[in-house]
């Protein structure tokens, strides 16, 4: 029931970038994700929706193995990136995370300057040959995250001294600066005003040309605007997954319908 595999044909031209099979996640005794199988296509924006606490963040964190860092968290099941099992012992989570970037639900800038926050990833992966190139990457990332104009005079001010929404955009800039193939974004616009939200949505759309984006959002409108595919989670289960239009106009599962129409939460 939680199985939402896609026959290759169904996804059209795009291939599955990530395939998850019977993923189970436990936090100690809490069963947070129950047997979720899902295929996330390449060059597509996939939205995860569902009531608060249903396991969206947890599942998202499975995709780049960020749950490894939580001691009580146990993940079972199979997740493949480009067909390769990410839990294979040969896989280096570092390499995986370089390819699958992430923006966290709570903005977590480093206690460094704004510039250093953004430059950190590119430096790590040797993406800039020179200082000038690095500066360019920093500027470009900040521009794309719609933060540049606000902070271009304070590049050396600490990133922790920004407003909530600014921190959120800083974290987006930091994530895209490393040019990941898949970008996982956990409510990236929750602290943003409509204009900034629109700019980030534009960015997401732009990213889709080359990359996959998975976005968790509570805004049905946002999901409808930016995503091609939508997954609806409820109480740790993946209830429905399909083309965004279909989900919003013609949900199969009554729970999906109830959620979309605002009847369950």
């Amino acid at each position: 029931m939680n199985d939402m595999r896609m026959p290759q044909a169904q996804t059209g031209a795009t291939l599955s970038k990530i395939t998850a099979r019977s993923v189970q996640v436990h936090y100690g005794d809490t069963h947070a994700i129950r047997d979720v199988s899902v295929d996330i296509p390449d060059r597509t924006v996939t939205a995860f929706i569902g009531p608060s606490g249903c396991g969206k963040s947890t599942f998202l964190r499975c995709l780049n193995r960020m749950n490894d860092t939580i001691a009580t968290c146990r993940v079972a099941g199979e997740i493949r990136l480009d067909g390769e099992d990410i839990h294979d012992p040969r896989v280096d989570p570092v390499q995986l995370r370089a390819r699958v970037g992430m923006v966290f639900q709570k903005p977590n800038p480093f206690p460094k300057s704004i510039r250093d926050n953004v430059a950190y990833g590119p430096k790590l992966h040797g993406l800039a040959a020179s200082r000038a190139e690095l500066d360019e990457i920093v500027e470009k990332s900040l521009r794309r995250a719609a933060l540049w104009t606000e902070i271009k005079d304070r590049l050396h001010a600490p990133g922790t001294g920004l407003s909530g929404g600014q921190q959120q955009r800083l974290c987006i800039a930091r994530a895209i600066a490393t040019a990941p193939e898949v970008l996982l974004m956990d409510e990236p616009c929750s602290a943003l005003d409509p204009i900034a939200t629109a700019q980030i949505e534009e960015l997401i759309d732009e990213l889709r040309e080359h990359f996959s984006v998975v976005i968790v959002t509570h805004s049905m409108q946002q999901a409808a605007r930016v995503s091609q595919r939508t997954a609806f989670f409820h109480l740790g289960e993946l209830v429905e997954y399909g083309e965004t239009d279909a989900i919003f106009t013609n949900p199969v599962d009554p729970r999906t319908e109830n959620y979309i129409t605002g009847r369950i939460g």
Partner: protein
Amino acid sequence: MTPHPSLFTRDPRTARRRAAEARFRGFGLAAVLIGVAALLMLLTSVLSSGLGAFRQTHVHIPVALEASVLDPAGTRDPEVMRKVTTLSYAKVIEAALKQAVADAGIAIDGLTDAEIAAMLSKEAPAQLRAKVLADPDLVGRTIDASLLANGRIDGYLKGRVTMDSAQLDRNVTPGQLLLADAMVAGGMMSKDFNFAFLTAGDASDLRPEAAGLGVAIIGSAYMMLIVLGLALPLGVATSIWLEEFAPKNRWTDLIEVNIANLAAVPSIVFGVLGLAIFINFAGLPQSAPIVGGLVLVLMTLPTVIIATRASLKAVPQGIRDAALGVGASRMQAVFHHVLPLAAPGILTGAIIGLAQALGETAPLLLIGMVAFVREFPAAPPEGFFDPASALPAQIYNWTQRSDPAFVERASGAIIVLLVFLLVMNAAAILLRRRFERRW
């Protein structure tokens, strides 16, 4: 788009970074191992040379307590019998030992009476005297006494003294060693657990076999009570004020630097200060745990403060905000939320500070606690003002003694000190583990 490299093959850069990671981790492990290896090495050397101190050779012989010698007045009144000195008891014991040796049919060529008498510790008469004075009715009877053997004989049984070294030694003869062998064979001499090492007072160079740590343990315990009772609250209070309440200005900077600098003041200077303030100015007595404790408090404060401040600093601001936001006062925010989160660091400061205080000798040198003390201090609080020694002072003292038997005792004392330290810190270590839980 270029096809993505497989996750299963490491790209060269990641491989390099992974190697760096492995190296770094290796360095970390190596560092831990270096520390642990050094600890094991030190512990082995201390244990191997010090465990012997926990066993002591005793001579078990029947002693006839001549009434005519020990209670010439015949009153059986301890006050009167106190007049009889250890010299008389020594004679009684000598006779008993000679008798016992003769009874056992042991004959060693060329062994003089004096040499036979010297098999026993000079403490033995005092032991017997104490026993008789405690129970005057023993006079006139023959009792089975367990008496301390001389330190060299004890050393022979422990392998420190050999026939060869006895040849050269002025204090023991090979004949005595042969007698010791015979007595061991005859069941008159054996090594037993050395309770006196933990309970007796110090002894002079003439009787190393009788030296114990009782006074030093009590002295150290008293001082640690004072240090724990004062340094921890004062240190934590100072840190809280500086970190959470004090305005951040030149003055507080000055105080901060000052405290850090106090840590660098050689400990003996605290002794100078203690002598000047506590003894000469405040008129507290010499050699007393109260003064030692107070000096050590001053010495430990910087350690506690530095550790506590560092930990308080590391508590995220969000916690304080959250508490203030529901209407807690700053004081309440600190005591309810910040302190518990900083507790591991505070406890580490306490552990290290106490370790330092427990092991420190130099300041005690100037306030009279590196001393020969045989009388036990009273129970607290009066006992805080009685002369006492301290474990590190005793160790320092014993390592300077000329009799080689004290080498073993000094190492034994170090073992006691470490056990003392672990017992004292156990609570802090356990508590720290609880607080270390990450939510």
